[in-house]
């Protein structure tokens, strides 16, 4: 038991540390952006966590896609668990992207929402996640639920890049009045940026580990319940 407990503890502690470090970098470590207003400069620091969250949000769906596809091939429960865990986590992260994006939009462009390609595709991805979870909630039989979820995972995942292309083409026809994500990033900013990406990825792995364990527990409980009946 001791060896098993080592990994999650290590994961949790290290990812938490990295996130805190990332937070420091984002708020203080990284240099100021080359913007005119004080508000704009401060608000720009949102992107470090905002984009890292988006990265995890989309990565999680890729994992759901792969896990679902493998489940269809192998019919083994563990892949379905992974798909579900990743989808749940991804949903939460995607929600974070939308909210943080909205909060950034306000000081940056004066509106609470912009239909630029990145925010819009994040919204579409979020809706896909919600649909995925609703689909799962709507099927009783576990085997069928896993199959359907996997199929939707595959179909929806394929649609995401297509959606992105379509939205981007649509955007270039009606470019926003203001440029989104103004200017490039200086090297120091890049460092904070990538550091946050890595920190969040590790955080994602940690959350996955815990969520998968949770689901396995549930399976044990369900199995025991069945035995008693």
């Amino acid at each position, binding site marked *: 038991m001791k060896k098993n407990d080592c990994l999650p503890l290590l994961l949790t502690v290290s990812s938490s540390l990295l996130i805190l470090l990332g937070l420091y970098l984002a708020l203080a470590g990284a240099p100021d952006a080359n913007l005119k207003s004080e508000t704009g400069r401060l608000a720009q620091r949102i992107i470090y966590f905002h984009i890292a969250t988006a990265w995890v949000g989309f990565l999680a769906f890729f994992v759901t896609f792969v896990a679902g596809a493998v489940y269809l091939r192998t019919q083994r429960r563990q892949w379905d668990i992974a798909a579900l865990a990743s989808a749940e986590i991804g949903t939460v992260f995607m929600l974070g992207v939308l909210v943080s994006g909205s909060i950034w939009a306000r000081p940056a462009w004066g509106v609470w929402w912009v239909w630029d390609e990145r925010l819009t595709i994040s919204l579409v991805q979020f809706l896909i996640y919600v649909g995925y979870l609703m689909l799962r909630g709507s099927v009783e039989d576990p085997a069928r639920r896993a199959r359907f979820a996997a199929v939707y995972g595959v179909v929806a995942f394929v649609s995401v890049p297509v959606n992105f292309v379509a939205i981007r083409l649509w955007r270039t026809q009606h470019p926003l009045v203001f440029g989104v994500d103004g200017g490039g990033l200086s090297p120091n900013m890049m460092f904070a940026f990538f550091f946050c990406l890595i920190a969040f990825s590790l955080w994602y792995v940690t959350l996955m580990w815990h969520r998968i364990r*949770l689901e396995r527990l549930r399976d044990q409980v369900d199995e*025991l319940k069945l035995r008693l009946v």
Partner: protein
Amino acid sequence: MGYLIAAYAVLWAISFGLVLSMHLRQRRLQLDLRVLRQLVEDAASSDE
């Protein structure tokens, strides 16, 4: 400045919410597991 704080606060809150939810579910399941294991044992011993 307020926006910066708000954005990070929201992200933390959402993260925390997820972790809390998982933690609560885990506690619940562990409790269920203990109860069920006990019941299974009782059923097995009463069969003998």
